[in-house]
């Protein structure tokens, strides 16, 4: 099905009163939770997951779209008003945005990030609608061997290429892969890595791990580093952008969106790189009369560009997630596990077997995007008030809801122990600069990779060379090796040259 037909179908389903209601609820909740300091989109979705338990699949995914985009919006509000970015993608927004807020220009900074997010979200969602079906066509030609190598490439890029150190990233990945292995082996029925604990036979829940990493671990780390003192929330002031603000924001929005989307689509899936690139680009391209504002009073270009890049990248991540079933960010991994809990496996077959669901989802992304820009500009005062919840009660509330999310899944005390245990590990991971996103991605992709590998081996009747003799598989393997070893070889080569 082509993009246009698909969108017509999708909008037909999404524009019913009840589905619009789910989208609105999702946008509202997503922004409200996403605005809380330290809560990024991944945790927002994980915390709100129990709400979807009693909703039908279509309604739940529309709700997710709203939550997903809403959490992105909420996160940028926090980074501007509080200078505490909730996820890596909004660190750059905080750079200039917090400076603008400090100089009484919080309103225009929020407005440019809201409108920039809208433009980027629209570009990104159009990208999903038009590129998605093309990717699906190619994806249907991939066999298990190619799929396995694609996942290996994914593992390498999310853990070794992004972040501070390949070794620590890979250690996080390994931890995630281990967690994914716990439980009964689906092919042979043997219990694996369960330590004889019967509760572990069903495996470790992905949502539990995400909440442990992002909520419990983060709160523990904040307590570790806690220094008494008041938190300063900047006043929003007038939200209106001047004519010059519009003129200065327009091209950064467009360039940011254009930069962010391809980065999101690639299996590297990071939002750090495009936001940083966009920041440096805008800093280079800024008109000389505004150049001095960068790093001092805060330049609006430095908010508009990176914020658009961040949102476009986040939308781009949905392309590999929906078409290949490959989550390349923690947020996408949580969404994938939500799909799985409804017995739906995203991937190329989903487009052909359940086109209604896929296209309703894509249409809902458009709707959520429009709702958010309409909702956020007038409601920004309300979001700023949420930020004024004092930190002690805020963190206390976060932990209570983290418990609900976990205990509600299984009513098992073992799960609570796991939640807190993994939370303590996550605290040490923060302390020693191990990235947490590879844990979630390894955990959800690991079992899928194992399944693909076993299928490939069954088809080839135990012949290992299948991974090297199929051309696409070999190319993917070489790409993964380049991504892993390339930087080291490059440094070594430069050192020899010097």
């Amino acid at each position, binding site marked *: 099905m082509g993009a246009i037909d698909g969108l017509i179908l999708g909008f037909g389903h999404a524009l019913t009163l009840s589905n619009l209601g789910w989208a609105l609820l999702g946008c509202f909740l997503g922004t409200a939770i996403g605005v809380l300091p330290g809560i990024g989109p991944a945790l927002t979705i994980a915390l709100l997951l129990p709400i979807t338990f009693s909703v039908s699949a279509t309604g739940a995914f529309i709700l997710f779209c709203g939550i997903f985009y809403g959490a992105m919006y909420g996160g940028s509000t926090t980074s501007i008003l509080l200078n505490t970015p909730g996820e890596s993608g909004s660190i750059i927004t905080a750079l200039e945005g917090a400076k603008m807020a400090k100089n009484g220009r919080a309103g225009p900074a929020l407005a440019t990030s809201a409108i920039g997010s809208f433009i980027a979200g629209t570009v990104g969602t159009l990208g999903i609608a038009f590129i998605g079906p093309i990717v699906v066509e190619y994806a249907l030609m991939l066999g298990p061997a190619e799929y396995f190598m694609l996942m290996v490439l994914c593992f390498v890029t999310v853990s070794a290429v992004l972040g501070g150190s390949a070794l620590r990233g890979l250690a996080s990945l390994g931890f995630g892969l281990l967690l994914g292995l716990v439980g009964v082996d689906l092919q042979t029925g043997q219990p694996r890595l369960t330590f004889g604990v019967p509760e572990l036979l069903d495996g470790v829940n992905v949502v539990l791990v995400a909440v442990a990493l992002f909520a419990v671990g983060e709160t523990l780390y904040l307590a570790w580093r806690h220094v008494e003192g008041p938190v300063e929330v900047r006043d929003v002031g007038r939200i209106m952008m001047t004519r010059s603000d519009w003129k200065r924001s327009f091209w950064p929005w467009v360039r940011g969106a254009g930069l962010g989307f391809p980065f999101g689509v690639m299996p590297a899936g990071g939002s750090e790189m495009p936001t940083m690139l966009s920041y440096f680009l805008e800093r280079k391209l800024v008109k000389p009369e505004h150049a001095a504002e960068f790093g001092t009073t805060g330049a609006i270009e430095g908010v508009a560009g990176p914020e658009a890049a961040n949102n476009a990248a986040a939308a781009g991540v949905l392309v590999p997630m929906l078409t290949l079933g490959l989550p390349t960010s923690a947020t996408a991994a949580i969404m994938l596990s939500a799909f799985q809990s409804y017995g739906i496996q995203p991937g190329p077959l989903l487009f052909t077997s359940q086109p209604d669901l896929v296209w309703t989802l894509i249409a809902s992304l458009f709707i959520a995007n429009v709702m958010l820009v309409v909702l956020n500009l007038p409601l920004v005062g309300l979001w700023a008030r949420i930020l004024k919840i004092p930190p002690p*009660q805020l963190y206390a509330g976060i932990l209570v809801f983290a418990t609900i999310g976990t205990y*509600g899944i299984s009513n098992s005390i073992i799960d609570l122990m796991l939640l807190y245990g993994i939370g303590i590990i996550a605290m040490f991971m923060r302390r020693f600069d191990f990235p947490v996103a590879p844990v979630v991605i390894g955990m959800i992709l690991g079992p899928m990779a194992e399944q693909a590998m076993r299928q490939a081996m069954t088809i080839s009747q135990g012949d290992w060379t299948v991974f090297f003799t199929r051309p696409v598989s070999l190319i993917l393997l070489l790409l993964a090796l380049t991504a892993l070893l390339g930087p080291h070889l490059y440094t070594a080569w430069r050192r020899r040259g010097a």
Partner: protein
Amino acid sequence: MNRRQAGTGRSGTGPDLAAALFVLALGLLALWQTAVIPASPIYAQVGPQLVPYLVSGFLVLIGAGLVATALRGGWSANIEELRDAPPINPRALGLLLAALLANLVLIEPFGFTIAATAQFVLVAAAFGSRALLRNLVIAFIVSLSAYGLFVKGLGVNIGAGMVESLVFGAPF
């Protein structure tokens, strides 16, 4: 510059080494758990043990690499964010861990509301809130309304106890 980095690096070696050893130990633990996976009676090209062996072996290798890095001066000292971070706050961390423990111990015998209230009050205290009575009231209201929302509104059971039975009637 180089010398100073080496100097601060040495002081960071101990903790970094401990973290590296933890990764190594995790790998070895997984290796042991893999070894006790019963061999499958079902014929398969790839048995249930292969991937766990690969993953735990991989983790052991990475752990060894981290140990080597830690012995050469570690990495924490070279990361600005970690170097400039305030020191450990034992009071806050202790109270927070107590909060987690309280919830763990209380939730089965006394139900969600009491456990969550205790947890809330302890966490708030960890982050420096001294209004004990006010927090107790907030905590109770938040927990009980969350319980009402999830159990009665969404049908997600999160653990009933005395308080819940009093307010919402006997569970199911």
